[in-house]
């Protein structure tokens, strides 16, 4: 009889660890020291008042020193899981869901690049409303993209109110969860209003938020007044927010990677403390774009191994803290979708997948985050597919080590027609879409295409496919009206300085 195994531990998936628990603790307690002894600058008086009222020391108007016990207390009310659910389909179902919790990995794009690669001319230029919509349509079509951020700033709309237009462009393109940006609290309020309309009421939002907000402290240790205003608004309105810095090792953070982790954690812990004081249970995601200033070019590196390594190490820290992680991958310093873009994206996506956390953004970035590329986005979908196959690991069971089949096939035999092969080959092997596995002759016959041509073909196919609008004309007009009202309110401020 088949006896069940006991005392047998299984790695159901591969495991990766950068830091030991001892190292994580060393970093955490170093952060507490910085927060308490060095303090941070908070330029939002309301934020300073809240912190001061609850026990923080304030010097020089805005230098805030937060004692450790305040951090410990904030952690006790901090949610360990944050859920964001996308917009309803025609049938009313919100089918895209992200449960951001320890060891779960979701991939999505990055936000607000000034430039994009035109899908038809392949030229780099300023991004527009139509680009954002197109990229959202592509993201909607890709099976391995779980959330969307605006892969381009809408620069053909008013500058001071671009955020509402950008959100509308995204809503037109995708029902997947969105991580938005906002110009200010007013812009955030408008976008929340738009989400309510799109959801069919505030009650739906209460069931599950449909977007999160991206905001960031400025390294080193500095907190913008408008950003803190948005943070407080999120707490008051049940909006999950990402509070993550972009420290550059050697420039805006210590040159040593451990020092980057200490400083970045300090910056995010400040956001955690303030949010939990404002509203216990406020939903925070921390992490960041942790990288270095490249000391040869002064560029902030998006494709460096240090970026991948720092993100993975920070994920170890967030697992220990039990707080959702905002990770980075699928991005590159290359100026076009080429071998470098492919290489850097593969390596950093692989590491992000292995470490497993949680909301992995910036898929589709090239040129160190300044340009979005539809081709890069589509290629990364394939890379993520490969990584996901790897993450399935290797089960070791009597079925997967088929001693009897091996014996029956015997030396010199083959497995092609065996029941065992027929049972498994479809699930055991990942099926590539864009990778070419033809032999030489068939590949030549098919036109000797390098991968970039197949990738670009896929981009055009998606964009040229016929699609139903995600919502009707009436709703579109309602959403658009919020954008127009905002433009109206701010029309004096533009001075005719449109960027595009």
């Amino acid at each position, binding site marked *: 009889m088949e006896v069940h195994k006991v005392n047998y531990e299984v*790695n159901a998936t*591969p*495991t990766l660890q950068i*830091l030991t628990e*001892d190292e994580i603790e060393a970093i955490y307690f170093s952060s507490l020291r910085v927060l308490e002894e060095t303090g*941070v600058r908070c330029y939002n008086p309301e934020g300073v008042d809240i912190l001061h009222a609850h026990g923080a020391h304030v010097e020089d108007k805005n*230098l805030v020193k937060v004692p450790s016990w305040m951090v410990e207390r904030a952690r006790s009310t901090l949610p360990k899981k944050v859920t964001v659910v996308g917009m309803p389909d025609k049938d009313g179902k919100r089918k895209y869901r992200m449960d951001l919790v320890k060891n779960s990995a979701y991939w999505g794009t990055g936000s607000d690049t000034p430039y994009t690669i035109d899908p038809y001319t392949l030229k*780099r230029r300023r991004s527009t409303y139509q680009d954002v919509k197109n990229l959202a349509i592509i993201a909607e079509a890709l099976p391995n993209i779980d959330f969307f951020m605006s892969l381009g700033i809408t620069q053909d709309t008013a500058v001071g109110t671009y955020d509402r237009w950008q959100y509308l462009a995204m809503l037109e393109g995708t029902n997947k969860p969105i991580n938005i940006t906002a110009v200010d609290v007013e812009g955030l309020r408008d976008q929340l209003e738009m989400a309510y309309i799109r959801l069919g009421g505030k009650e739906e939002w209460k069931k599950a938020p449909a977007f999160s907000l991206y905001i960031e402290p400025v390294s*080193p240790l500095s907190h913008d007044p408008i950003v803190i205003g948005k943070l407080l608004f999120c707490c008051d309105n049940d909006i999950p927010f990402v509070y993550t810095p972009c420290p550059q090792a*050697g420039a805006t*953070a*210590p*040159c*040593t990677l*451990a020092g980057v*982790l*200490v400083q970045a954690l300090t910056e995010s812990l400040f956001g955690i403390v303030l949010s939990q004081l404002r509203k216990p249970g406020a939903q925070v995601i921390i992490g960041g774009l942790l990288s*270095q200033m490249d*000391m*040869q*070019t002064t560029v902030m590196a998006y494709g*460096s*191994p*240090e970026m991948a*390594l720092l993100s993975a190490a920070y994920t170890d820290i967030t697992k220990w803290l039990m707080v959702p992680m905002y990770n980075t991958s699928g991005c590159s*310093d*290359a*100026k076009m979708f*080429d*071998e*470098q873009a*492919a*290489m850097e994206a593969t*390596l950093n996506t*692989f*590491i992000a997948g*292995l470490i497993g956390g949680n909301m992995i953004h910036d898929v589709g970035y090239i040129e160190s985050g300044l340009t979005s590329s539809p081709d890069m986005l589509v*290629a990364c979908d394939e890379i993520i597919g490969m990584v996901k196959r*790897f993450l399935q*690991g*290797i089960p*070791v069971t009597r079925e997967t080590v088929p*001693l009897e089949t*091996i014996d029956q096939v015997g*030396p*010199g*035999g*083959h*497995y*092609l027609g065996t029941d065992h092969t027929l049972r498994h080959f479809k699930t*055991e*092997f990942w099926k590539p879409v864009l990778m070419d*596995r*033809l032999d*030489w002759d*068939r*590949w030549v016959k098919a036109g*000797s295409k*390098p991968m*970039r041509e197949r990738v670009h073909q896929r981009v055009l196919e998606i964009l040229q496919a016929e699609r139903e609008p995600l919502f009707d004309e009436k709703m579109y007009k309602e959403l658009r009206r919020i954008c127009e009202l905002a433009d109206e309110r701010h029309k004096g401020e533009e001075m005719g300085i449109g960027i595009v």
Partner: protein
Amino acid sequence: MRTNYRVNSGTRFHVFSKDQLEQLFWDTLHILEYTGLDVHHEEAREILKKAGAWVDGIRVRLPSYMVRKALSMAPRSFTLWARDGDPKKNIHIGPGRAYFGPGPTCPNFIDPYTLERRPYVKGDAELVAKVVDALPNIDFCESLGSISDVHVDLSALYEFAYMFPNTSKPIVAWSFRWDDSEAIHKIAITEAGGQEAFERRPNYVHYCEPVSPLVSTFEALDKLIFAARHRVPLVFTPCPIAGATAPCTLAGLIAQAAAESWMGLTLAQTIAPGLPFFMGGVTSILDMQTMIFSYGAPELALAECGLTELAHYAGIPLWNTGGCTDSKTLDEQAAIEGSFSVMAAALCGGDLTHDVGYTESAMTGSLFQLCMMDEAIGWSRRVTRGIEVNEETLAVEVIKSVGPNGHYLRHPHTRKFFKTEFWYPTLCDRHNYEEWSAAGSLPMRERVIAKVREILETHTPPPIKKETRDVIEKVLADAEARVKSTDTKKK
């Protein structure tokens, strides 16, 4: 003073738990003991029988104690030496370290100047060795091809004869049979200063390949016996194809590859106890749509990691596979697939990773792929080096002195660490758009091609001894005479 402080030296990565490895280990022994292998070498069967194997005709079954005894004799840690004694080029096999190099026997080669795919010719072995010698992250040398323009029996010998003078990095040599193994060995020991000196400091590794499923061919074992008798470190590596010549589940694939390797291991250790031995396998899948043996599949990388862990559990090093692709050209697919398996190999830390530079599913060797992967390996090695966490790197005092809104660009702490903490790319371009455009808006492949050509035109490998040069000339002349006389006899 900190105490009880455990750190990770580099990243920690696992596919299997200890319990799963124990299961796989005993499953492998089960295959060897109950199913056994067909061993097509009479002398090998006799040696194994004398050592306790059960032999029925050509079928050889190994009681598990024999394999465990062999495993206990094979070293986990040893050194492969650069022929010129350059300490930077020595390979220290041991826990936690991954080394990389090309693979053997592709029929085709990408000409570095015309960029055409053409048959591999004599001079190509020289080019490959030169590029291997120059690339910082390529640690050992194989030829990336089978020479087409010499007598078919001599291609392996010519490869070695052309590679050896052009790199001082350890070479992994393959051969057809005893004759050319002997000739290759003569070259290597001449440079080392004789057989005894070679045994103390081996400067090449001998490669042999059994057949899946579960067949030890005459050629593979004959070469193995040669290597064991001359104490040449051994690579014994099957290429089981999941779904065709091995179970299509990766765990079954791994167990079978291990069984095939350990037959060779047991024979080698019986003849030469303590002989450095790499178990192996190119463990990948049959693509069920195109019917090719995939060198770019994620399953290859995953199975290699699993096999590495099993090898390390058993206490011996692994002949790993990575940096290879199914792509037919220098493109994004080649970068993706090559980088993927390189990173996997670096993470699992095992031990000699070959086939860096394979394209077209091992049909074509490419210096461009090799050179591009040098960058991916450098990248991966920066990741697997991990993060050092101590008082100085935590930098609390530095953060304090810089303070909010300050910057670290001029801080002594930055000046101390910026060179070692960061990896600097050579092919990945980090310039901003304006500077990149001004330099010609080149995609990475153009930089790769330029770098390979620059190495070929400028790199001078360390020379070999005069007597070695003479021996090379002599063994080649002898070999030519030998094949001439055999061919005449045949006629």
